[in-house]
């Protein structure tokens, strides 16, 4: 009995020693200061509940490029969200494991911290709830969060990062979702020529300036503000995806006026995110502008901007050239580099 008591006391002693140690070695994991560019919209309200930290972001980036997230270990988040293409993949529709074709075009994932809606249909309002979707979708990674955790749980580098980020080595679904979101919150693109012109560090060429002026007249009511999207959902008469699972925003809201409406995409880094449209209908910016000029598909809920204008947005060839020149000033080449 005495022996046991002695043992217990010894353990208690060791334990208290340990806890003192860990306090002494408390990890410094500073919050990252998100440098919010001038005139950007407010942060998504959920960012304040999951503020990026140094190790959280490092962990998120590592998870983002880990192929063990897919059932056959062939695909990571970064397989489709490729940085040099402004985190898109140059494919009409995303390609998952075994070459499975997804429903929609891979969206760029810059400036997500400032977005109110995620995905083409705005199905998600909080970034932390998004990573589960590709993990479990048959046409994407076709895995499950516990399968992923099973594969990475013994990885020493992960244990280290989870400890540094969250205080202990436990790998949980929530921690995975949070760290991926933290990494994504830091992907801010605001150093294009357009931004530099705004900061009066440089100036537009003549063609870019003309393009900017046409843009203000004909495009900026939807591609509004510093994100170049007003984050509304609109049916602008693009060719329809006939996949029976596609209904645009309507499959989320159940509102028929949202049928085949999609989120107005940002135009930042648009030079690198071809093909364009919810399922990559257009291979070039020119072909998008030609389509507007020729006339779009009619629909009951066709956006008033087109409905009231004979389903068209007439543009001369010169205007198209200038518009494209302007759109290329939204390219942020530093953002595309590691």
């Amino acid at each position, binding site marked *: 009995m005495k022996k046991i008591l002695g043992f217990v006391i010894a353990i208690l002693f060791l334990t208290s020693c340990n806890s003192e140690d860990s306090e002494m070695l408390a990890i410094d994991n500073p919050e990252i200061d998100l440098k919010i560019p001038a005139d950007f919209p407010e942060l998504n309200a959920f960012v304040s509940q999951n503020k990026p930290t140094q190790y959280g972001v490092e962990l998120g980036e590592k998870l983002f490029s880990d192929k063990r997230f897919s059932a056959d270990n062939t695909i990571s988040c970064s397989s489709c969200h490729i940085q040099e293409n402004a985190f898109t993949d140059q494919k009409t529709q995303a390609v998952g494991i075994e070459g499975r074709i997804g*429903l929609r075009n891979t969206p760029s994932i810059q400036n997500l911290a400032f977005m109110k809606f995620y995905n083409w249909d*705005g*199905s*998600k*309002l*909080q970034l932390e*709830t998004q990573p*589960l*979707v590709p993990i*479990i*979708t*048959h046409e994407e990674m076709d895995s*499950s*969060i*516990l399968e992923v955790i099973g594969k990475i749980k013994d990885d020493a580098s992960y244990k280290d990062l989870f400890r540094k980020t969250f205080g202990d080595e436990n790998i*949980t*679904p929530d921690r995975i979702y949070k760290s991926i979101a933290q990494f994504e919150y830091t992907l801010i693109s605001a150093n294009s020529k357009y931004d530099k012109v705004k900061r009066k560090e440089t100036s537009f060429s003549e063609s870019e300036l003309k393009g900017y002026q046409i843009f203000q007249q004909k495009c900026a009511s939807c591609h509004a503000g510093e994100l170049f999207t007003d984050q509304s959902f609109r049916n602008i008469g693009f060719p*329809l995806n*006939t*996949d*029976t*699972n*596609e*209904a645009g925003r*309507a*499959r*989320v*809201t*159940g*509102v*028929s006026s*949202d*049928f*085949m409406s999609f989120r107005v995409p940002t135009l930042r880094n648009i030079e690198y995110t071809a093909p364009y449209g919810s399922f990559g209908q257009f291979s070039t910016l020119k072909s998008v502008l030609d389509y507007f000029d020729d006339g779009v598909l009619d*629909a*009951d*809920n066709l956006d008033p901007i087109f409905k009231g204008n004979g389903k068209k947005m007439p543009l001369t060839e010169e205007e198209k050239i200038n518009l494209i020149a302007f759109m290329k000033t939204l390219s942020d080449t530093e953002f595309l580099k590691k």
Partner: protein
Amino acid sequence: MQNLKKYFLLSLVSLGFVSCSSDDNNPAANNVTLEFNNTFKNTTIVLGNAASTSATANTSAAGQAHHFSELKYVISNIRLVKDNGDEVPYSVNDLDKGATVIDQAKTASLSYVLSNVPSATYKQIKFGLGIKAEQNTLDQVRFPNFYAAAGANDTAMMWEWGSGYRFTKIEGFYDADNKAMSIHTGSTVEGTAPNYTQGVNAYRDVTLNLTTNAVVGSTAPKIKIKADFDKLLSGKTNTITLSTGTGMNDNATPNVHTAAQMVKFVDNLGGNGSSDITGMFSVTAVEN
């Protein structure tokens, strides 16, 4: 040591009590079996492919012939109501223990056994068609068994894009030329009840009066529940005509029934929550 003896004695005594009560003619609890009979009107449905001659055919109020090749739905949030009005919840916060997928292709799934239901006389049953928003998150850690059952390849009751479960999944054929029909329902709500920030709540709470009281005690009653899928197209709330295509009003394949058109099917199957709280369900018999 003296204490230990006391505890030992106490344990023996309580063991004695336990064994006494289980020998009793009036146990504290017993099973209740819910037996689902999926029908078109009064005929139990036989599934079949497009060319099947054995599949049960039905004709809607709008005159459309149809039959099913697949028929599944989720039951959760089960509550039994005593004759004094008290509600007895059955693992309502645990999908692993209190929810199930009824699958017409799997006979075993048609009988769902509620275990350890407190002995009492019950007059009513309530349950949900689908899953309440708060539990409908595809949380594999919280409900691993239900997640596995619903996600199995031969079940496919998940809406991955919406991070939620499918509440009903009906595949079949309609009209003389056997066009495909594919009715899937599920919730897309974001935020918390009742002030959802966006989306459609496809969960429906169903209340059914028992034909005779179910007496749980020395007997383990069976409650027979009919789910009349004639109501899918010819319901109390909506009379639906199926049409195929990719337009806003086409509803036979998943494009729009995941949205505006979907609610019409949901209201027909599970009731609209106000004037209709039974939907397609009714209790046909209680065996005590």
